[in-house]
């Protein structure tokens, strides 16, 4: 009988199955290690110094007005005063010109927009303009009133919108000029045009028929900006910016931009200025503070020099470590090691 050859059960002699794949074996040789440390050190130092220089070139001024407007803040502590207006002025002096685009922010301190229950309290579908039942959505308890009217927009985020009005006046030669400010173009393009849409109807007030304003608002959502149709309803810039909840308890939001026309074509000239504020947002109950911030911007962000400092420190540390390694190597070179290259 013929001997039957059984198929071999050995694994294939391929590179993969015999674990003989070609491989690059990195080794910590002196040249590679020192070059890595010194290159990282030099590059980080260079970038760090650039970043620090550019952060220092940002002009910024921050005015705390919740402390100076103390009578308004005490008025607002009592919520039954909600329909009483309160105005407040805050003066400041610009020692140098603020050249370039000047941005005006409002700042809040000790306001936790990043609280978990607060962050989820919204309905993106409603803000898209779709007809949706907000009763059992994440917006609870700010969903409907007792008579069943839904709130538009629902949720705690929209309900607590920042509603101070801030105007800027320039005092020159005993005359007061109002600085022209732009109130649109401050939000993300995708937010304004995709994520937030008004419900479609003949006019805006009929689009929101059957809904009511949230409890803390003074006007309904279709009266947020009656002058500009493209800034009214859900697509109001201030609402959009507020709905982008901030990551920390001390934050700022873009409020207005200085319009570069007339006297302010190059920015804000040096001189005396006044903020004229309609104080509505109460912060004293939770020991918060409010600020107005005027700032220019650079490509690397704002006036926070931390990133530049981080790069510089890392570059210095890497360079020093490179020197330490060189010193160790020089000291050890005299001793013989077992396996010499």
């Amino acid at each position, binding site marked *: 009988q013929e001997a039957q050859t059984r198929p071999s059960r050995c694994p294939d002699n391929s590179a993969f199955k015999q674990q003989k794949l070609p491989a690059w074996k990195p080794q910590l040789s002196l040249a590679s290690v020192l070059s890595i440390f010194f290159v990282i050190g030099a590059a980080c130092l260079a970038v760090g110094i650039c970043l620090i220089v550019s952060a220092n070139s940002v002009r910024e001024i921050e005015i705390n007005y919740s402390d100076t407007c103390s009578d308004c803040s005490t008025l607002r502590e009592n919520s039954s005063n909600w329909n009483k207006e309160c105005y407040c002025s805050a003066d400041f002096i610009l020692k140098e010109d603020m050249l370039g685009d000047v941005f005006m922010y409002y700042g809040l301190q000790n306001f936790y927009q990043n609280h978990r229950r607060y962050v989820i309290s919204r309905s993106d579908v409603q803000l898209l303009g779709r007809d949706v039942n907000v009763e059992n959505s994440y917006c609870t308890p700010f969903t409907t009133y007792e008579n069943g009217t839904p709130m538009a927009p629902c949720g705690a985020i929209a309900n607590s919108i920042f509603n101070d009005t801030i105007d800027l006046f320039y005092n020159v030669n005993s005359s007061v000029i109002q600085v022209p400010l732009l109130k649109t173009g401050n939000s993300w393009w995708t937010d304004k045009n*995709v994520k937030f849409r008004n419900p479609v109807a003949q006019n805006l007030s009929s689009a929101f028929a059957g809904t009511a304003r949230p409890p803390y608002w003074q006007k309904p959502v279709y009266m947020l900006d009656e002058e500009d149709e493209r800034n009214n309803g859900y697509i109001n810039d201030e609402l959009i910016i507020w709905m982008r909840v901030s*990551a920390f308890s001390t934050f*700022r939001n873009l409020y207005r931009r200085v319009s570069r026309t007339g006297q302010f074509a190059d920015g804000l000239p040096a001189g005396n200025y006044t903020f004229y504020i309609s104080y509505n947002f109460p912060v004293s109950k939770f020991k918060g503070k409010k600020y107005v911030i005027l700032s220019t911007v650079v490509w690397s962000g704002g006036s926070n020099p931390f990133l530049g400092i981080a*790069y510089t420190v890392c570059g210095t540390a890497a360079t020093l*470590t490179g020197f330490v*390694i060189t010193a160790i190597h020089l000291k050890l070179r005299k001793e013989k090691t077992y396996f010499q290259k």
Partner: protein
Amino acid sequence: MASDFAITRFKHLKKLLLVHGHWCYSRLAKMVIYFFYKNVSYVNLLFWYQFFCGFSGATMIDYWQMVFFNLIFTSMPPIVFGILDKDVSAETLLGLPELYKNGKNSEIYKLSTFIFTMLDAFYQSLICFFVPYLTYKGSDIDVFSFGNPINTISLLTILLHQALDMKTWTVFHWATMIGSVLCYFIFSVVYDGLCVVCNPPNSPYWIMEKQLSDPTFYLLCLITPVIALLPRYFLFVLRGTLGSSLILKAQQLDQLPKEQQDLEIQKWRSRKQTTTDASITSPACNDLDQTVNHLCVSPFLHTETAAVSHGDVNGQGLSNTERNPLRKWTPEEGSYFFNRWADATDSSAGPFSGRYPLVPNKVASPGQEASKITRDNAKKFNHGSHRRSVSAVTL
């Protein structure tokens, strides 16, 4: 680590123990410690954020990105590492059987390894959180735009950490590393580009695209992994320069050309032998055939391994013998094992018991238990017994 192997020849045992055993241990140990590190370092990011969100349990990283982080983006590189990585080459492992101790003594994964890895994970999570935090502090960044660079930085740091550990880079390693990063960016861009309301209540629409157009994002993603991993890299460099473990020397040995490798091993062995005052050479070498000639320089004649295995047999723990690994070479054990190997390869019979029965205690050191010798084994060692009585005087 339970593993059952069936081999057809005793000669396969050598490679199984020395090469595959070592690789298996090394890969598994490193993969396990890496998984601990990866998860501690990632979840701690969420913990540090609690200090800034009123301890309310808010997560700044988008839910689906978090889920896929461990599932897709950082899962493949450690698996490829655990299958394919070779920290020392097969030839060196076979040529330096002393390296077998590396696995026996759990040198790659001890309690100190775990503690240092956890400290490293805490440090890296601190850096990965606080560098972006201090960069964006007081600005107008929103919650998920803050979580996005943190997630990206953490991914890059974790993958680079793995890359620092990888000793052999095959095409699979390159593919999974680069593929993971690409996968993450492509997924983020697509998900953030399409999802307007798909993930209620917080859909991350356009967050990644907005970050990708911001120079601060790139600057952060470059510096933070560097800061996070620089201490670890520095420690690796120091260990490579100053460390004296055998596994490190073996890795350095791998770099040398072949002839120089054998030379270096011989030089190292002779250096070790002179320090151990070996007074008896191995006359038995001359009796045996070429196939076991290389066993003359096998570890079983050397003090350290002999001492260790002596300790094993002793059953009294390794403390006695490990405390002075340079104690005098006990020729009786050496020749004992040597003869056993010789018999094993000569007759190629009998199972390898794994325990080394002791010679009757004419030359036993105090405190040593006289183990039993099975009868058939006793026969085999008769021809060595005359050497035992000779060597008794040297003790």
